[in-house]
């Protein structure tokens, strides 16, 4: 198993390297960041000065090396706009995004798993068709539009929930629902197909043939096997939601990292944009590595192989 883990870590390092290089190159290939952010009235000397100040006059490999060195020590550069370290801004906002991501994950699980299980246990019945419809709508309704409609219904017409900001639970409900909706559909689909596969397996048949009570068959034999991939996906999805909630955070004025990215884009604050994007990549590569290693511990087929 240790070999598996070492190989997996190496892959992650390579992935990280390629990702950061990609982002680094895109920022520099698509134009002069200094020209992008400097004011139109800036003189050439000013541009030169800024360039030097940010180390942009050095060769790309050198820039990349410093960039990586800083990134690995948690230093993502300084925001042009806020004049603060990007990491400081980032970690200030991160808890909000985590809250939102967690709430959205809970919603996606609460909708996805029961619906998926019912749909699998009662396959090809009316229940199943309803679940399929929900899954289809989950993939077809754009999350941000759902957010807008929720605001329209619950804030403008019914006046039940506040439209924006953060504070108590009432602020979280709508953004979490809008964000979790799409993921609920994917949870539902995965739960259904995973349950169906396990329920149709020979070992479930044998478990029934052993005369075990139905609930033992489903809750112990089927669940463990069927829900491992589901919870794995939920974990990965949560990290994705933390990072990909840009529009939802903008709509609900939720002060998370998605909005930080949005602000960065509109203020032409490229160290900020670069930092947030790279952190997203880091986090997702991290969770994927974590999940694979965790799998290795849960699944005896991997755990006991050398």
């Amino acid at each position, binding site marked *: 198993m240790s070999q598996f883990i070492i190989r997996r870590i190496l892959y992650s390092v390579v*992935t990280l390297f390629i990702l950061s290089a990609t982002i680094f190159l*895109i920022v520099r290939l698509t134009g002069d960041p200094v020209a992008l952010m400097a004011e139109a009235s800036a003189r050439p000397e000013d541009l030169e000065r800024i360039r030097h100040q940010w180390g942009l006059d050095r060769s790309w490999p050198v820039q990349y090396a410093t960039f990586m060195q800083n990134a690995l020590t948690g230093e993502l550069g300084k925001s042009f706009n806020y004049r603060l370290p990007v990491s400081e801004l980032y970690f200030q906002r991160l808890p909000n995004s985590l809250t939102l991501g967690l709430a959205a994950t809970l919603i996606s699980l609460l909708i996805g798993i029961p619906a998926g299980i019912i749909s699998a246990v009662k396959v090809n019945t009316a229940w199943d068709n309803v679940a399929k419809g929900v899954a289809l709508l989950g993939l077809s309704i754009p999350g941000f539009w759902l957010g807008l409609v929720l605001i329209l219904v619950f804030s403008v017409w019914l006046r039940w929930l506040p439209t924006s900001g953060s504070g108590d639970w009432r602020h979280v409900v709508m953004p979490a629902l809008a964000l979790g909706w799409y993921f609920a559909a994917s949870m539902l*689909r995965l739960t259904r197909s995973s349950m169906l596969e396990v329920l149709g397996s020979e070992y479930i048949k044998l478990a029934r043939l052993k005369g075990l009570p139905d609930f033992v068959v489903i809750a112990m034999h089927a669940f463990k096997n069927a829900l491992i991939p589901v919870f794995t996906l939920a974990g990965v999805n949560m990290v994705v939601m933390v990072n990909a909630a840009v529009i939802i955070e903008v709509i609900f004025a939720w002060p998370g990292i998605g909005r930080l990215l949005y602000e960065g884009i509109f203020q032409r604050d490229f160290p900020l944009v670069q930092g947030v994007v790279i952190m997203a990549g880091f986090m997702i590569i991290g969770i994927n590595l974590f999940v694979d290693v965790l799998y290795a511990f849960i699944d005896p087929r991997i755990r006991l192989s050398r």
Partner: protein
Amino acid sequence: MATIPANTRLAARRTASGWLGALVKAAREAPLMAVIILGGLVLVALLADLIAPYDPTLPVKGAEMFVPPFWMEGGSVATPLGTDFQGRDILSRLIYGARVSLVVGLMGTLVAGGIGTAMGILSGYVGGWVDQIIMRVTDAWLALPAIVFAIFLAAMVGPSMWNIIVILGAVYWTRYARVIRGEVLTLRERDFVKLAEIAGASKLRVIKKHILPNVMNTATVLASLTVGVVIIAEASLSFLGVGVPPPQPAWGLMLSEARPTLMAGQWWLTVFPGACILLIVLATQLFGDWLRVRLDPQTRNL
């Protein structure tokens, strides 16, 4: 296991024509609703110049701003779905918006599918370090949430419809590459490919005659399911202001323009464009689902 076909050429031809045959058969049995919606939208997009009552980028002469739909108090049949914050006709903007959504959705998918299929075949068939490089790049690019990556690229490149197409192609090709590669890996072991190789066919010829025709099914299914994703992505980018620039009438942009007045209860500005996105994506999903079952039962869990 597959039986050994007597003639490799025959086997290849059979699968290739099988694909065509399946498409023809598909056309006959396509799910009615999805086809009607998609066909209608394509027609609307093509004939936008003829059927749209007004210029979508200019205010309607004599009309006020924020006129509600015709059935509401203050509504007018002249602007049946109301007007926006500049007094432009919503219906006309929706009609022209279909054009943007369809063009971006189809072209973006084409770019993504083209790059992805090529990379997947290269990676799976050539193997070795080529495979390693392509797969590591795929891993790295997949590590970023698609929307974040797209926003990042769009912010760097600048907004325009054609930029968005290239950007979304660049973001979504990785999914194709992975799936196609897996397919090619199994194909490579199939007897008709082996026999062609033994017979001395060049790599390029094997790819052209045997590999490509056999991954087309999967690529088509993936494409049908990607169109909707790309359309939503475009709407998201336009909504955030890094997509199709104003005054072009894109649905995502319309949603974005409606936002400041959402709290005033001017729901038609928000509901109509969103419903259009929902409709088109729903139709592509239905169509794609049906195509998947038809062409490629193996990808059922994608």
